[in-house]
């Protein structure tokens, strides 16, 4: 082996090794030597789509990755540990380049921010169904349903908020539950009962009889008044006259009253009204049956919609890609959901 | 060494017992028995295709025989395990037909190779021994030559030198003078005799170069393809004149009557 080839070999080995280490450096092995902070959170919803290595963002800025996902089955809680590259957190001093904050300062900052409402929530990343964890300030933080201290977390704890999709699902489910709780059947039954009883009254023969009785009574009253006029003598004519006049006045008054009653009763035309009312009622009854059916259908639709939303939540990619396994039930549900 | 043969306190250099060799089911040579005593130059002779080269390769342990045993200095090379086989092999030297020098190494390195690999000798010692061996075959001064730069005769001599590297007491030469012109062939014969004189080694050759046989061999073992075995065994001159087998007599007569320094043209 001559000097020339020795040189060649040496050069090759040095260059290739240099490229090797440069590649390691560029591709971020150096990250391993950077200081890492850790935070943890606890969630009770499904972490479908989240995996070790999923990114963690602070108000949209990528700052780390999920390092561990654990299940505490007794509490039905999932613990997510995150590794935070604190080199993204800087302090600016006047006239100097930004400096990365020390790890203790970072932990303090997180603890402070948690008091002010810093929360983790899972967000959908792109269309692939993968998720990332977003750290952000939330105005009204609902307290967790479990005692965080029981878990004895070694890392800084950041509470979690339900993710957007689980929020959405929650609201829709609540609305639908309210809809579902309305007693459509009871309402329609009661309406029917009322209508039936009205119908019965109007149709009964007593109703016509009462009107006839009223007519007869009025006629009787007129005859009595005429007889009373004939009986009146001349002696006591004056007295009687006055009385008669008074009576006459009174009778006139009664007559006019009677007439007006008669007129009114005539004007009412009860028969016709009763007829109309009856036909209205039968329509109403028919309508009420249709209403029943409609309500039943709405009920079904609600179930299907809930199913659909749960499905989408568990596999958001299906929104774009369609369902993986064609399932007749779910298909129907989706169909129903769209129709309504 | 002679642990297995109480009747023969001095074991034969080579002893072949009931040896059958061949390829697969085809037997080439059957039921061979012979002994070669130390210090002899023995030639295995036979027509083309009678299996003499194959026999040689069995004796040096490259192939496994179908049956029988081969003892080198009293140790069986057939039944030896890998390590013992290597130990037996280090006791003999082989010069192959084409020289089989390693083309990536120069002449000195070729000869030094077995020394480097199998001994604990120092570099200086190895260098000294290499030049000794090269002097023995009249190649001193060619240390730095690559095998491709050497002529056919030189390659053969270099192969002899390499075979001698570890001072073995047993040498195998496969067709030492094949394909060489008569003068070079003569010179090789002289070298072989010189080697024997200086090292007192037993030499087993395979060749059908008759002039060479008459010049150097003490004994000829004649093989025949038809008989699948030894036809005759004895000194070349005796066999030429007195062999019971006509084939042997005819074969050896083709070599003429001379004993040495022949200018007879090469064989057909």
């Amino acid at each position, binding site marked *: *082996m001559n000097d020339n*080839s*020795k040189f*060649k*070999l040496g*050069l*090759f*080995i040095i*260059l*290739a*090794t240099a*490229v*090797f280490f440069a*590649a*390691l450096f*560029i*591709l*971020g*092995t150096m990250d391993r030597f950077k200081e890492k902070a850790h935070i943890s959170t606890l969630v009770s919803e499904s972490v479908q789509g989240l*995996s*070790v*290595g999923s990114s963690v963002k602070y108000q949209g800025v990528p700052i780390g990755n999920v390092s561990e996902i654990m299940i505490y089955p007794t509490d039905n809680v999932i613990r997510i540990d995150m590794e935070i590259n604190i080199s993204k957190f800087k302090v600016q001093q006047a006239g100097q380049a930004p400096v990365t904050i020390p790890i203790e300062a970072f932990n303090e900052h997180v603890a402070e921010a948690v008091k002010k409402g810093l929360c983790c929530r899972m967000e959908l990343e792109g269309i692939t169904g993968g998720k990332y964890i977003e750290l952000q300030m939330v105005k009204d933080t609902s307290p967790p349903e479990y005692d965080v201290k029981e878990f004895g977390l070694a890392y800084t704890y950041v509470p979690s908020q339900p993710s957007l999709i689980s929020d959405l699902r929650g609201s829709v489910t609540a609305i639908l539950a309210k809809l579902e709780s309305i007693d459509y059947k009871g309402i329609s039954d009661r309406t029917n009962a009322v209508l039936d009883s009205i119908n019965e009254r109007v149709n009964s023969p007593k109703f016509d009889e009462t009107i006839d009785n009223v007519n007869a009574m009025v006629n009787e009253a007129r005859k009595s008044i005429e007889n009373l006029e004939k009986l009146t003598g001349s002696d006591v004519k004056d007295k009687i006259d006055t009385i008669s006049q008074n009576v006459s006045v009174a009778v006139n008054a009664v007559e006019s009253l009677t007439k007006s009653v008669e007129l009114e009763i005539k004007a009412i035309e009860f028969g016709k009204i009763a007829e109309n009312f009856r036909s209205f009622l039968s329509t109403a009854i028919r309508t009420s049956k249709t209403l029943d059916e409609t309500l039943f259908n709405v009920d079904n639709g609600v179930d299907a919609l809930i199913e659909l939303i749960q499905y989408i939540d568990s596999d958001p990619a299906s929104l774009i890609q369609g369902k993986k396994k064609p399932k007749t039930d779910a298909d129907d549900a989706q169909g129903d959901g769209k129709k309504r | 060494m002679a642990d297995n043969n109480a009747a023969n306190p001095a074991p034969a250099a080579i002893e072949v017992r009931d040896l059958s060799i061949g390829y697969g089911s085809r037997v080439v040579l059957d039921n061979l028995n012979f002994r070669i005593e130390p210090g002899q130059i023995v030639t295995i002779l036979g027509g083309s295709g009678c299996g003499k080269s194959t026999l040689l*390769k069995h004796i*040096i*342990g*490259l192939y496994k025989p179908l049956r029988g045993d081969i003892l080198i200095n009293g140790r069986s090379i057939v039944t030896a395990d890998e390590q013992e086989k*290597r*130990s037996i*092999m*280090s006791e*003999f030297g*082989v010069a*192959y*037909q*084409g*020289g*089989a*020098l*390693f*083309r*990536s190494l120069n002449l000195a390195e070729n000869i030094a*190779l*077995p020394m480097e*690999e*199998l001994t604990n000798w120092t570099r200086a010692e190895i260098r000294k021994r290499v030049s000794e061996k090269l002097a023995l075959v009249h190649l001193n001064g060619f240390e730095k030559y690559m095998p491709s730069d050497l002529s056919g005769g030189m390659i053969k001599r270099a192969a002899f030198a*390499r075979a001698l590297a570890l001072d073995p007491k047993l040498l195998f030469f496969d067709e030492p003078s094949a394909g060489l012109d008569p003068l070079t062939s003569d010179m090789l014969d002289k070298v072989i005799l010189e080697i024997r004189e200086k090292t007192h080694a037993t030499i087993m050759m395979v060749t059908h170069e008759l002039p060479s046989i008459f010049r150097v061999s003490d004994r000829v073992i004649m093989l025949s393809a038809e008989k699948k075995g030894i036809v005759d065994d004895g000194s070349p001159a005796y066999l030429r004149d007195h062999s019971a087998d006509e084939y042997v007599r005819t074969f050896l007569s083709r070599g003429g009557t001379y004993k040495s320094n022949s200018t007879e043209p090469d064989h057909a």
Partner: protein
Amino acid sequence: MKNPADSIIQCGDMAFQLKDEVVSLISFVGDVTAALWEGIRHPKRLRWKDFLFYMNTCGPDGVPITIMISALMGVVLAYQAEVQSHKYGADNFLPMVIGCTILRELGPLMVAIVATGRSGSAFAAEIGTMKISEELDALRTMGIRPTRFLVVPKMWAMLFMLPLLTVIGDFVGCAGGYMVMRSELGMPLDVFLRLTRQGVAVKYFIEGVLKSVVFAYIITMTGCWRGFRTGSDAIAVGRSTTSAVVTSILFIVLTDAFLAKLFTVFYGWQG
């Protein structure tokens, strides 16, 4: 017409040949591995001169063709990917696609195939020629194990050189990809680097380099094995050279598929 029995006999023969081949390969692998181990235990017994010689022939001498093939591969890959993904506006994913594909698969694979053509065939031819000229027999009768003498230096040289060649191939391939990104999309270098870093984990790079170590083992093993299996006639060396290349590429691709799965499973555990 051929006798049907003949075909059956032929099939049987082929099966026996195959069995012979497999047995011989396995024992050869065992032999070489034992010799390698011996070399590790006694580094003095390694043939350093041969080792350096083969380092030179397998490494620096192969750089020009490796660079050429890898660069072109990077260019072609980037161009094809760009044409497709540009339609979807996914240009920002291209550096990741190029980086991952080259570092994980194409880099090691192409470099290994080039090395098979250059070194694997050379090993087969060299050992085959040595067999025909009885040099292997000579070694054996000298009490030297041919595998230790012939295969081990080649093996070490390849095990060292092929990963380095792969590193160069990876680098040049990505550079070729960048050239396309630059000319077609006008992507600046820092953006390309940033996007590559974002999508390409360092483990992918390590994966490729580890693969190339396995490929080096396969290339040397197959090349030398074919050399040792050379027949004794004149065309045997040519045949064993061809078969060394074909067998070696076949093994490389099979192993690559297996390793791809293996690494994916491993990453599955790691995340």
